[in-house]
């Protein structure tokens, strides 16, 4: 399978199944487009009539170069991966490597677009006890097999509403990781309201990553991210985020925003984040119920695509000035990215990754918490709802008929099961709007990588 596109002055050709990326001139671009549909003579005739200033010899040479790319396995590589689709999950069956700990089903903000209904996940407000947290980590260690790196995300609601427990739990984790030869990598996702010097010191010492929620422009942020009195939170949190990031000493963080129907022009929000001194950024399209007033519309789509293109250009401009910044979705390592097993096996929700509620119940991921039919079990008895787990275990890129002919399938691995479920009622469906945005992002991300690679 081949995908070709023109962006920012580059003619880019992707050989999907080998992972090959080529930059070609206009003639070669057209030859590749026709290569599998026409005979050699037909292609050369039609190309020479389009480019009548170019000699037949030149066109034939071009054609030969395309042929040789194909014969060397760098173009039109056939898709032979389907038989491997279940192997990674079969190989690692029963191994859990990551937990999302819902340490607080409560929040000090009242954001209208919150997928977790202000942290309550459509249930009661609650915080996780230290005992439940310890048992969750024990459960993770017990089920992690030979895997060394274990990931734990402190999530909510607002996790800092249970900060003492997080500190105590991390201390416990550091005790047990030595004993079991494991390494815990913690992430904290916070709205910033409760950040103080103690939090900054702790987060910068113990958290491999912190995800800081900021939507960019003050008026956009304050439209949604309000407290229970209706006051915006931007003024309160921005100086705290700046202080935390300044003190972070180069460790990972993400300034993470959500864009909605109110700000499809989200590049303006990215620029605000940059102006505030942040340079590890992520902006995510909103996930909400169909028909919600914040839902991205068909009219928003071209606006959003334009933002992605302009963002890519801005990244290259800043790069040329020595002022690089990262955008989560544009981070792509063409040389050392994930192997083919990972690329076809999906996100791992419900199998190697689960969410834990304050009561110790297990769900396939944070987005399924509160969906009773997807409750997998609990941290005491383990996974008991094998039927639901099977549904997730069998999720891979070849299990989704809609992914079959998609050029981006080995970059997304079938996408988000929760988005698919909310959009189609099935975890094996696809959230088509999200797919279209994903493809656009990938084209831009690869273009940025290509531009940088050509500089080298």
């Amino acid at each position: 399978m081949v995908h070709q596109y023109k962006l920012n002055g580059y003619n880019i050709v992707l050989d999907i199944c080998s992972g090959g990326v080529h930059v070609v001139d206009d003639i070669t671009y057209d030859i590749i487009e026709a290569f599998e549909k026409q005979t050699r003579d037909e292609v050369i005739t039609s190309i020479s009539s389009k480019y009548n200033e170019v000699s037949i010899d030149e066109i034939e040479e071009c054609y030969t170069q395309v042929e040789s790319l194909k014969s060397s396995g760098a173009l039109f590589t056939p898709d032979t991966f389907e038989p491997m689709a279940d192997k990674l999950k079969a190989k690692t069956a029963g191994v859990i490597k990551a937990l999302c700990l819902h340490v607080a089903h409560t929040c000090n903000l009242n954001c209208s677009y919150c997928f977790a209904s202000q942290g309550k996940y459509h249930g009661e407000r609650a915080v996780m006890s230290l005992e439940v947290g310890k048992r969750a980590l024990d459960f993770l260690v017990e089920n992690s097999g030979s895997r060394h790196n274990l990931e734990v995300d402190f999530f909510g609601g607002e996790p800092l509403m249970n900060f003492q427990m997080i500190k105590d739990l991390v201390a416990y984790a550091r005790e047990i990781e030595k004993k079991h030869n494991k390494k815990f990598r913690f992430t904290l996702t916070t709205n910033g309201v409760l950040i103080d010097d103690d939090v900054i010191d702790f987060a910068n010492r113990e958290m491999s990553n912190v995800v800081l929620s900021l939507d960019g422009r003050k008026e956009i942020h304050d439209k949604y991210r309000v407290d229970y009195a209706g006051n915006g939170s931007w003024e309160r949190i921005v100086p705290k985020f700046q202080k935390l990031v300044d003190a972070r000493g180069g460790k990972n963080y993400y300034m993470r925003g959500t864009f909605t129907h109110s700000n499809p022009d989200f590049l303006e929000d990215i620029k605000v984040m940059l102006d505030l001194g942040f340079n590890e950024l992520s902006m995510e399209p909103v996930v909400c119920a169909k028909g919600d007033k914040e839902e991205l519309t068909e009219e928003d789509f071209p606006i959003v695509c334009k933002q992605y293109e302009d963002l890519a250009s801005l990244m290259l401009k800043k790069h040329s000035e020595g002022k690089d910044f990262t955008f989560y979705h544009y981070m792509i390592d063409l040389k050392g990215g994930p192997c083919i097993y990972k690329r076809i096996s999906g996100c791992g929700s419900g199998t190697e990754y689960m969410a834990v509620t304050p009561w110790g119940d297990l769900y396939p991921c944070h987005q399924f918490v509160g969906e009773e039919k997807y409750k997998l079990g609990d941290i005491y008895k383990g996974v008991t709802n094998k039927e639901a787990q099977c549904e997730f275990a069998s999720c891979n890129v070849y299990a989704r008929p809609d992914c079959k002919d998609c050029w981006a399938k080995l970059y997304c691995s079938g996408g988000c099961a929760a988005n698919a479920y909310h959009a189609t009622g099935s975890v094996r469906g696809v959230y088509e709007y999200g797919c279209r945005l994903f493809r656009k992002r990938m084209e831009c991300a690869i273009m940025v990588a290509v531009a940088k690679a050509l500089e080298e």
Partner: protein
Amino acid sequence: MEHIKTIKTGNLCESAKNGGCGECQTSCQSACKTSCGIANQQCENNNK
């Protein structure tokens, strides 16, 4: 004349030989949390 510039990339078919160790990060564990993808993950296989 150079018509094609091939960017240096890993080869997915080759990665089938030693891949599948499962040490890499869970894809939805970082700053995405909704728009899951695997393209930006790092390989963490120490036995390549």
